């Protein structure tokens, strides 16, 4: 287990931006005239999740924004959290958004909207309720022997 500690408000700030992007994506994806834009936006969101999943939230562009623009305006956090959990959650986001991209490419209808909708719910719960769905399902997946 990683012992790297981060400010828990950082990932939450990132989740808020992701929430807005995914809501925009669902809206764009619902109309045929903007479906292509929605697909490109989902590709971009997938790439952002990949950065978070591979390099961690602190090295993510949102982490940089948080550190340089938001954190100086806030007080110190009450406590730090382990960096591993939110990084794992980025991986779950990558899986969902990436699945939407791939399914759309092979021609599955509505893949973009459905993937963006599912990821939206997770990001919304993280941003508004501080509920980490990605962390939550980790243990369920492990017990079902889906992972390791």
């Amino acid at each position, binding site marked *: *287990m990683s012992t790297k500690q981060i400010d*828990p408000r950082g990932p939450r700030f990132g989740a808020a931006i992701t929430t807005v992007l995914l*809501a925009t994506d*669902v*809206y764009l994806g*619902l*109309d*045929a005239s903007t479906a292509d834009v929605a697909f490109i936006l989902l590709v971009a969101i997938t790439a952002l999740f990949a950065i978070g999943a591979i390099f961690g939230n602190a090295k993510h562009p949102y982490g940089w924004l948080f550190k340089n623009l938001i954190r100086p305006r806030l007080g110190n956090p009450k*406590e730090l*959290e*382990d960096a*591993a*959990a*939110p990084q*794992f*959650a980025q991986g779950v986001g990558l899986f969902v958004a990436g699945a939407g991209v791939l399914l759309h490419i092979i021609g599955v209808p509505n893949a973009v909207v459905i993937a963006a*909708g599912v990821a*939206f*719910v997770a990001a*919304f*719960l993280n941003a*508004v*309720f501080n*509920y*980490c769905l*990605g*962390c*939550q399902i*980790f*243990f*369920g997946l*492990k*017990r079902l022997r889906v992972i390791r």
Partner: protein
Amino acid sequence: MPVETRLLALAALVGVAALAGLWWRATTGRARRIVAGQQVNLAELAAVKNGQPVTNFGSKITFLQFSGEFCAQCPPTARVLGELEAKTPGALHIEVDITNRLDLANRFNILQTPTTLVLDKNGLVKSRISGAPKTTTLESELGTFAI
């Protein structure tokens, strides 16, 4: 698709997410009373506290916290329960990492971490708290079992 329909769909999505969040907030960290709870076996648990194997339950109450990997709420929960143990005579806090103990996860049906089992002085499971325990929940558990 008309703009109104799209906005309506988006609003429905936000509504579903908000309801899920409110439901989670209302249920997480609360104690669920267990009738005829399991007997916890300390040898099987193989818990370690301050470098020593745990061989006795708290003389009044034991908080058995199951933690795991990728668990943001586990360290704060351990801190709160540790503080509670320090100020409550007869209370014991045990933390067990079940990342590689699927046997324990199956035995106690742990679906999320942290999950805290409240044990009586004999090690019988009396209640179960899923998620970071609420302060009021911990107070009422102490009032029920540690008086």
